[in-house]
C-alpha cells in the first residue's frame, strides 16, 4: 500500500498532475486511479461516496477510473445520524 501511495503521489516530479481533492489542490501521479487516491488519502470508510468531476462513481469502477489534470474529486462520508 505504501508503494502504491508513493507511486500515486510521486511517480516522478516532472510528471505529476494537479487535481483538486475535497477542495484542496493536490499533486498526484498521472496514472493514479480513484482506488489509488482512496488509499493515498486514507478514505477507507466502506460507505464512502466518491464524486469525480461532478459525477457519482460506483465502487466497482474505482480501480479503472484514472484522474486527469484539473479533475475534481470529492470524498463524501455518509451521514447516518438522526
Amino acid at each position, binding site marked *: 500500500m505504501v508503494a502504491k501511495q508513493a507511486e500515486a503521489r510521486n511517480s516522478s516530479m516532472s510528471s505529476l498532475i494537479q487535481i483538486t481533492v475535497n477542495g484542496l489542490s493536490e499533486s498526484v501521479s498521472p496514472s493514479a486511479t480513484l482506488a489509488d487516491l482512496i488509499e493515498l488519502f486514507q478514505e477507507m470508510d466502506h460507505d464512502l*461516496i466518491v464524486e469525480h468531476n461532478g459525477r457519482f462513481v460506483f465502487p466497482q469502477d474505482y480501480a479503472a477510473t484514472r484522474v486527469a489534470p484539473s479533475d475534481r474529486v470529492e470524498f463524501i462520508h455518509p*451521514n447516518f445520524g438522526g
Partner: protein
Amino acid sequence: MLTEDETRRYSRQIALPEIGVEGQHRLAAGRVLMVGLGGLGSIVAYYLTAAGVGYLKLIDRDKVTLENLNRQILHTTADLGRFKTESASEKLGRLNPHCRIEAVHAAIVDENVEDLLDDCTVIVDATDNRATRLVLNKVSVRRHVPFVYGGISGWEGMTSTFIPGSTACFSCLFPSPAETADEPSPPVLGPTAGLIASIQCLEILRLLVGAPPQLAGRLLRFSGSITAFHMLQINRNPHCRVCGGQTG
C-alpha cells in the same frame, strides 16, 4: 369531503396550485410509515401531522433521555423516561385531531417490516443507524414503495428520495454489504436535523399529492459549517445487490 374546520385549517396550503382541494384530499388519504422519532422524526412528524396527512404509523424503540432534548423537539423535559412513541402520539394528537396516529413501540427488523409497512404508500427514514435503513430499503424495493432517506452528523446532513423501479435505491448509493454494529452516536445539532427533515417533508408531501419529487435519483447534501448545499446525481448501480439496477 373536507369539513369547514379542515378547509380553514389547511387554507394556506390549499392556496398552492400544486395542492389545492384535490391535493388536500390526497394528503388526508395518505398513509405514511415513519421510522424514528428523534431529531429528524420530531420535525417530520410535526409537519406531516400539521399538513393533514391522514394516517401516520410511527415506529420507535427508545425512551426519551436527557441528551435527546437538544434537538428532538417533539419531546420535553416532562417526557424523560417515557417511550418516544407515547410522547409523540400525545403531542401530535393535540396538534391535529384530524390525523390518525398509530405509534408502535418496536425495533424494525426484516422479520416485522412487511407487517409494519402494511398498506403505507411512503416510507420515511428518520432513523439513526445504517442497519435499519438497509431493512427499510429492502422492503421499499420489494414492495415498490418510495423511500425518503435523511441522515445528519454534526453540521452536515444529506437526503435523497428512492423510487423503486425508477431511481437508484439506498444500496446503490451505499453498496457495502457490511452489516455494521451500531455506530457510535455522532454529534448532532438541532437546526441541521430540522433542515434535513424539512426537506424530507417537502418530498413526502410532493409524493402524496402526486407532484414529482425533486430528489428522486439525486443526493442533496447540506454543510452547515459553510452554509452550502450540493446536489449529486445518483444513477442505478447495475451491480446493486438489492435492486439490481433494474427499471420498472
